[in-house]
């Protein structure tokens, strides 16, 4: 996907973070821009944010990751420094077809972080290793 579109997406998220921190809401123009840039998964991601589905897990080593509870009840682990999600939509639409910038889980994680709406959870270093390697879920 065009790198300029990625830059637009990054700027949009920065604008949203600034606006939300000042007004505690997302104005219509930003919602329209989100829908335009990210497509249908924008609204799905906002639903996940409303449901507080994103958890930032951290360990004593200071390692962090996001865990997103999807609509199906499945927990997806996303990384903090790059775009990756183990869900089928990311694998197909983003990686294989290069049609989408992101999936709803990743976008929900970005939005939750920008809006300060992530839940927080502490796990042990060993649990974090299992989470990062895609083996276990934090909330059991």
């Amino acid at each position, binding site marked *: 996907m065009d790198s300029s579109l990625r830059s637009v997406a990054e700027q949009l998220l920065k604008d949203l973070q600034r606006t939300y921190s000042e007004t505690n809401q997302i104005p219509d123009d930003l919602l329209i821009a989100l829908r335009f840039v990210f497509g249908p998964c924008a609204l799905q991601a906002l639903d996940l944010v409303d449901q507080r589905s994103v958890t930032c897990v951290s360990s004593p080593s*200071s390692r962090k*990751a996001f865990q997103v509870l999807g609509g199906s009840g499945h927990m997806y682990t996303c990384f903090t420094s790059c*775009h990756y999600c183990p869900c089928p939509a990311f694998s197909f639409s983003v990686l294989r077809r290069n049609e989408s910038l992101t999936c709803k889980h990743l976008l929900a994680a970005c939005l939750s972080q920008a809006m300060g709406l992530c839940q927080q959870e502490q796990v042990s*270093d060993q649990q974090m*290793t299992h989470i990062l*390697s895609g083996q276990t879920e934090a909330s059991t």
Partner: protein
Amino acid sequence: MADILGVVFRRFASGSVTSDLPFPSSVEGNTLVIGDANISRSVLFLAAVTAATDLGLKVLFFTQTPFQSLPVSLRASVPGLKLESLKNVKFVYVKTLKELVEDVASLHELASEAASPPSLIIVDGLEQYLHGPQGGLLQDDLGPVAHVAALLHDTAAFLTQIQQNRADGQGLCRVMVSFQSECEGSRDSESPDLLLSVLDRYLQVRCTLEKMAGQNEWQVYLSGTCPSLGHQGQQWHMVLQTGGAVEFRPVIIGEQQILNQQDKSRQENERREDGK
């Protein structure tokens, strides 16, 4: 990582070997090395040695195959090499993708206690970890390759943060991965290009090693989104000498055209000889 490769190429350049090499600027340059498995392994090994000895960095070298002998002759290339300086390189032999992922995922457990966390993580022959049950590269599932590449990227970013927290904003951790796209079962399928496109998302620099016909010589192309490469990337010429020493030489654009013409002429001569 493009910066460490730059140090490698200058370190082993023909004609002048300087001991006072400036530490490269802090730019994100996780690198994907593409080429024949043997020569890629040699380049990775040189990068590990250079990082450990010249730059004093801690290196983790993941590989499926233990080194039975040195891939290049270090004694010929680096006469004054002290082998104890190689103690900064830790070789980790992992057989499966699961083991590789678990080892990389667990690096954070020791990093907070270690005196100096690794600054260079090398994975030799990633394609060997991505084979499906029938032997060819994984065709339908891009998840595993994306996961391991993203995990490497994220781990390097974490270790960079650890180093910068300790050293007043200094320090970087980089990733270098080699991948041989042409292997059994994949020659005519689209899957190698798809796998490479996935890897490109997480490894910003591509180092392509292209063998020149009939000789122990390779053209080395550095390209990618890394700002330090400039708009046109970089090109180097690599030669493996008879004694096993390796040499690099930067290629200037006009000279590249001459090299291409020489290569083309050589190939035509070989075709004529075969046709007789």
